[in-house]
């Protein structure tokens, strides 16, 4: 484009502000925003890479979708920045713009090379920071969202119970505005709360099913019921849901699975499932003699929690990390794992690593038993771990690296050509599973699709 306008307006010494100011006059709004994102990313990258990986990630993620347009951008931005230095009186600002230009150019070169790799994994839910709450979010929900995004509450059952308990408080504090009915307005009141939770961490299938059931109950509320009674009834229904679909279901599963544990068994489990923990503690309290092998892995290293609970109960345990599984698998007599959700073709969506454990066990003809309540059932078929997954935040959030390892030998942040992915879930195909224990019975994996029929209603 033509030389920059020679307006006498010279903004005061803001070295970084100079090129954008000049550019804003020439480029369109979208291009301006892109250039700013790029420069922000460059600045973040220039800052010794460690502190904030978020803006880097966001910019990187934003760069992935329009790789072609972004290629054109740096050239234009570069050319304009080029004409900027001769005008700037201050030498450091000139150097800075040149740095920005060269860094932008370098980043542009990286983008097409990384763009392919980024695209393959770009649909994974990148962890986003909890943004400002839009609208009126109940403090209980705010707290819960923070707990979710910091992984203080983990596990399908725990998250669902926490969500439902929080909703009980929200419903209690809810007041129907005039000229509205509870059955119609409450849902619109709850929607932004739900979106806020989803923004913190993608919703689990358990939460989804529970909320769907809640919506059904709300819309079925009798219009003539006084507000307080309606709210009490809803809270009662929530309590019933938790009691029937989770607590009692867990008890039934505990009994059924406990009957399968014999004296002298060696039970192998992976990471931490609340149901499996209950099963093991229950069987131990009934006096059965068995030992447990706890297999654990990054990124969450949840198995340590299970290990401490079992050790407190004086159950003999072994603890090892996932790669060492090959050496101990032959000693196991049974594999017990939990699930995040199960699908109608019998595949189990659970913590990343479960698929490996189930695969190796099946190869050794060791029974793999999945303990799963029916409310985790999800319609639809998932084909592989890619269609739906979640990434854990980078860095050492879970303090999962051993203290014996010096931190500078580890890679904790992204760098050019290197990206860190921590998928949290994976999909175990039905061929690796022997049976699924639910509260309606012990079911082989290919019959999972008939669970809704077994329950007598549509889930």
């Amino acid at each position: 484009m033509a030389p920059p306008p020679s307006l006498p307006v010279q903004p005061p010494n803001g070295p970084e502000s100079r090129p954008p100011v000049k550019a804003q006059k020439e480029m369109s709004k979208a291009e301006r925003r892109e250039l700013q994102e790029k420069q922000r990313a460059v600045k973040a990258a220039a800052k010794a890479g460690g502190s904030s990986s978020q803006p880097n990630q966001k910019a990187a993620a934003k760069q992935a979708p329009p790789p072609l347009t972004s290629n054109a951008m740096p050239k234009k931005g570069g050319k304009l920045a080029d004409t900027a230095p001769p005008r700037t009186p201050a030498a450091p600002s000139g150097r800075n713009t040149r740095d920005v230009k060269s860094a932008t150019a370098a980043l542009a070169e990286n983008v097409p090379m990384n763009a392919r790799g980024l695209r393959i994994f770009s649909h994974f839910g990148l962890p986003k920071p909890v943004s400002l709450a839009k609208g009126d979010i109940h403090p209980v929900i705010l707290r819960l969202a923070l707990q979710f995004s910091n992984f203080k509450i983990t596990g399908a059952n725990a998250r669902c119970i926490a969500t439902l308990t929080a909703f009980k408080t929200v419903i209690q504090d809810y007041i129907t505005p005039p000229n509205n009915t509870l059955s119609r307005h409450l849902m619109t009141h709850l929607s932004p709360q739900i979106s806020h939770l989803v923004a913190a961490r993608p919703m689990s299938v358990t939460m989804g099913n529970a909320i769907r059931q809640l919506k059904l109950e709300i819309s079925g509320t009798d219009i003539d019921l006084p507000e307080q009674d309606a709210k009490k009834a809803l809270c009662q229904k929530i309590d019933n849901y938790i009691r029937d679909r989770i607590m009692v279901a867990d008890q039934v599963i505990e009994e059924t699975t406990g009957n399968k544990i014999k004296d002298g068994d060696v039970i192998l489990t992976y990471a931490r499932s609340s149901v499996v923990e209950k099963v093991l503690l229950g069987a131990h309290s009934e006096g059965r003699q068995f030992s447990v092998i706890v297999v654990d892995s990054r990124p969450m290293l949840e198995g340590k929690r299970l290990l401490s609970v079992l050790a407190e109960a004086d159950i003999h345990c072994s603890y090892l990390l996932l790669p060492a599984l090959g050496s101990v698998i032959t000693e196991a007599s049974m594999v017990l794992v939990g699930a995040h959700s199960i699908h109608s073709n019998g595949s189990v969506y659970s913590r990343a690593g479960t698929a490996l454990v189930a695969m190796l066990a099946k190869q050794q003809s060791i029974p793999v038993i999945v303990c799963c309540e029916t409310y985790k059932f999800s319609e639809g078929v998932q084909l592989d771990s890619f269609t739906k997954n979640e990434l854990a935040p980078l860095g050492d959030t879970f303090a999962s690296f051993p203290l014996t390892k010096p931190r500078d030998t580890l890679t904790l942040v992204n760098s050019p050509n290197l990206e860190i992915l921590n998928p949290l879930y994976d999909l175990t195909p039905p061929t690796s599973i022997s049976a699924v224990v639910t509260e309606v019975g012990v079911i082989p994996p290919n019959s999972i699709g008939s669970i809704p029929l077994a329950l007598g209603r549509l889930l």
Partner: protein
Amino acid sequence: MAPEASTSTSHRSVDVLVSKLRRRQVVGSREAALETVKVLRQVVSRAKFSNIDQLVGLIRLVGRRLVEAQPKGNTVRKILHHIREEYNTATKGTASSSSAVSSSKGVFSIANFVLQGQPRKQPVAQKSEAGRTTTTTSMSMSVRENDPHDPDSFAKSLKPVLMEAIQDVLDELETVYDNVSKNAKDHIHSDEIILTIGHSKTVEAFLKSAAHYRSYTVIVAETSPSYSGHEMARSLSSAGISTFLVPDSSIYAIMSRVNKVILGAHAILANGGMFAITGSLLATSAARVHSVPVVVCAGQFKLTPLWNLYHEFGALDFADPSSVLGFEEGRLVGKEVEVVNPYYDYVEPEQVDVFITNDGDHPPSSVYRLIKETYDDEDHEL
């Protein structure tokens, strides 16, 4: 015994190497092999022996000590093999000294059948039956064993040839990475996604060499508890290869997108199986399920004539458990908690598709032939 007493100084270097191996101060199979060769070179150069058996016995002794420190006596076996070959070329007459001929006399075995067909570096000892023909080495006529007047003459005349042979082994070891990566670009194509685990220097050289010609992506699994995958990822990305670093738990999850699995080996066994870093069994099993080819890059010095009959899953060496469950979890350690941290996995031959060595590419089913060519039968048990 005379030979032993005279090699007291070289014993010291053997002691140093043994203690270094025990304390795992020598990192990497190639480094261990190089050190072993250097020590053996010292031993041979200082050795005084009157006949070949004394020399072999001496080297065997040293080898046994090294194998106790770190169970891989391949370099020792290889050197013994080279020494015997040189000796055979040099002497060329006495039927008893030629191991190939003696074993083929009247013993029908497929192993010998295989050997007969192998081209040898020097003219095969069978030719010697035809009488003393002109030989390549001029000193062959003058070699006399067990000469009572001059016990050192045998040693002195043979030593230069032996030192050359050992130097060959050393050269081969030093160029291992280059030779393995020679055909790297034929094995990797553009836009492929490769999975690897841990930090194998052979695989690193292989991938970097292919990166000169192709642009592709590598996914590195962390490989806890050593987390050597981090170093590998950093090294590959600094060479310009687009890299992803993932924890081991997601190996199955990403396997559906991976085109090839490339691993390193610690030792390749006689049946075609291998010992490799823990986590290799996970990667190869998942690859098998998804029908992804598994390629193993290893130098030929990793071939071992041993079998793995009794340890189905290769927990033959354990590492420090504090990297699995640190001492800060002291209250757990007090209870009945057993922490396991094995070093190696055993991978069956059926799970590997090809071994890429500095000597070419081989399927696991022909590993036994390679071992026959590289080592002598008597050395299988040091």
